[in-house]
């Protein structure tokens, strides 16, 4: 299983930083992450199932898209984007 690493508010909501999650793509993995951690529902994906605009997902350090493939040993980081002003 891939390991999803959360930080900050998301880590606090989920109760821990690292979560082993099954999923063939980033989208599938995030949906499963929310299913297995109901407190996260709506925080990463909006009601349409779209990754929120200022959330970045990295797979093994590379910025990923919803359809990016995820392998069993991959490390996924979910981070707030650069924002502000």
């Amino acid at each position: 299983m891939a390991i999803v690493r959360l930080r900050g508010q998301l880590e606090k909501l989920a109760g821990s930083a690292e979560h082993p999650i099954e999923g063939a793509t980033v989208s599938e993995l995030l949906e499963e992450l929310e299913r297995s951690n109901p407190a996260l529902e709506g925080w990463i994906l909006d009601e349409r199932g779209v990754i929120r605009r200022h959330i970045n997902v990295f797979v093994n350090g590379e910025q990923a898209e919803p359809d990016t493939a995820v392998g069993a040993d991959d490390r996924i980081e979910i981070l707030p984007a650069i924002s502000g002003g």
Partner: protein
Amino acid sequence: MTELLVGTRKGLFVLEGDPGAEFALKTRAFEGEPVEYAMREPQSGRYFASVTSPFYGPRIWFTDDDPAGEWQPAAGVALPKGGDQALKRIWEIVASEDASRLYAGGDPGVLFESRDGGETWELNRALWEHPTRPAWRSDSGGLSVHSILPWPGDPDRLAVGISAAGVWLTEDGGKTWRHGNGGILADYLPEQAQGKSIALCVHGLARARERPERLFMQFHGGVYRSDDAGQTWTDIAAGLPSDFGFPVVLDPADPDSAYVIPVTTSDRLTPDGRVEVWQTRDAGTTWSACDDGLPQQDAYLSILRKCFDGAGEGPGLELYFGATSGEIFGSADAGASWFAAAKRLPSVQSVRVARLGGSR
């Protein structure tokens, strides 16, 4: 001592003070995040804040007794999953008179209700699935349920104002809705569409506590009064320097009273660089300026729709309004004189007076 909850583009500011002098900062919360609205439910004392995180989306948060303490996210403040829309913002949170129900209105034209003190919320499906919804229109602020008026003593009766979908009324607790737009004229619509279109840009609504069938409305070009619970409306803008504005506040003791803050149609700023609150005490027949203590030269303020509130009633009515330039002005004598309660806050998105014991 008066407590003000000021939602800003950079967090919630809780101010405390005695009218007449600048208020002290009691605490901050949600630092750096847009706080669209904050209120304190008077019966329980619970604080609520609507926060639109740039990262995690819109959410309602609550905390008991101490706004400097830990805030909890409320559950259920979302649109149905799998649809083609996402919740964008919560504009207002309001309690019924007995606090048995809480309502929250937001964008895109949605109303939520809570019956457990605001911990969980449910979407009002009848309004969400209303067959006229395809004719509703967004204004520059979105498609917003921004004014929610419970009926004193009857939590099943409710009026809501939507930009831009007019006034909606329910008498069965939100199971069915009808619109109450009779008499409203929109100068942005062609003559043939007047009285037919429901794309009506209500800016603010208020209900008279002592005569609940009386409502006042600040419209997108027009100030109106209804004496039949929001079914039909009479234009009462004659005598105001501009019929454009956003919020409207009433004196709860006087159903003939209303306060508005006129701004220009062209740029939505206080006219001629003068800040004036205008009041009527005869249900809109005549209006007079309340400007003693307010800036009267080179003061071009933008006062948004949730940035004006009152507490108490009668001659001691307290009034407070905030501007996007970060100032808060207050009055402790029903508008007769004004003072600066805060001068250097971030852009103000909402102002609410926090009162306990059932009074606002």
